[in-house]
């Protein structure tokens, strides 16, 4: 098995559009969707063991940077995706919510692991039984902890959502209702 010397790389699928010499025309939302989905900047809100598993996912073997998530930001203002990884205590709830509120639109939330999705095995007085009690969640990744392959799968689901999102979803009725349901307006 030698080194693969084929000259072309595997490209992603181009959206439907009109192609001509030196140009490619497609609709704006498809172009923007493609740009957004390949440059999701996550905010790793890592609290527990799932955070360590996320570190493994970001490392070279599984490499989340391949999907455009090379630049993690701990500042909510500069992040697109809030990845909540780990057990969230009831005392941490308002802080997590504040981080979510500070994020600029468009934003998505990924709940990784059993604790963030539903409280996990910690059905106690101090653990928040799922972050969807305080904020809307887009993708849940079950597992305790989920393997890096599953985290990548979750991110690819987020990519599907991001690609097909309308450009200004913050004005859509459905989104506004969702925000009101959580008291985020």
């Amino acid at each position, binding site marked *: 098995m030698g080194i693969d010397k084929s000259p072309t790389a595997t490209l992603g699928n181009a959206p439907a559009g009109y192609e001509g010499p030196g140009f490619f025309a497609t609709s704006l939302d498809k172009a923007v969707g493609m740009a957004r989905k390949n440059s999701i900047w996550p905010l790793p809100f890592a609290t527990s063991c799932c955070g360590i598993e996320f570190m493994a996912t970001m490392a070279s073997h599984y490499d989340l940077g391949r999907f455009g998530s090379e630049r993690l930001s701990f500042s909510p203002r500069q992040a697109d995706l809030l990845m909540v990884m780990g057990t969230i205590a*009831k*005392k941490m709830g308002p802080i997590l919510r504040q981080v979510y509120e500070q994020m600029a639109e468009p934003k998505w939330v990924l709940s990784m692991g059993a604790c963030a999705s539903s409280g996990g095995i910690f059905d106690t007085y*101090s653990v928040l039984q799922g972050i969807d009690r305080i904020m809307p969640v887009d993708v849940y990744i079950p597992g305790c902890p989920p393997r890096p392959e599953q985290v990548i799968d979750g991110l690819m689901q987020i990519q599907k959502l991001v690609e097909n999102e309308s450009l200004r979803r913050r004005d859509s009725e459905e989104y506004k209702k969702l925000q009101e349901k959580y008291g985020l307006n």
Partner: protein
Amino acid sequence: MADVLNTLNEKLKTKFGSDILSAEQLFDFPVFTVKKEKILEIIKTLKEEEGFNFLTDLTGTHYPDNKGQELGVIYHLHDMPGNRRIRLKTYASLADPKVLSLTGLFPGANWMERETFDFYGVLFTGHPNLKRILNMDEMNYFPMRREYPMEDAKRDDKDNSMFGR
């Protein structure tokens, strides 16, 4: 190891007499049960005269069957130069859960007493800032007391058949 127990027992008994309720050797620890009013003086004596300069741990317990002496506060002291470890226990009732605070002697007792207050409701008199440390401030009960059922019987969002109960 029993010498530690005996020497300290003699010393404390001569100084404090009947305030030392019991002294016994539990495996590798001499354990003294004392009256809660004298706990500060006893620990001060141990620190200054016997050299127990390190408070390893301060924690609480709750024995609901010991009427009048339900809430216990347990202290672990370590004599670093002489390498001796002892345990002190003192009990308070639920009606009067006040115990003297050790923050004057050991600054490390500050957060440990806050934790004991947070989980057992033991009120430490003389503590500079006695408020909850690990739980939410709005919580109105003390979780580690043995007064509550393990699970909330009225939960309707967890399906028992899925959880193997």
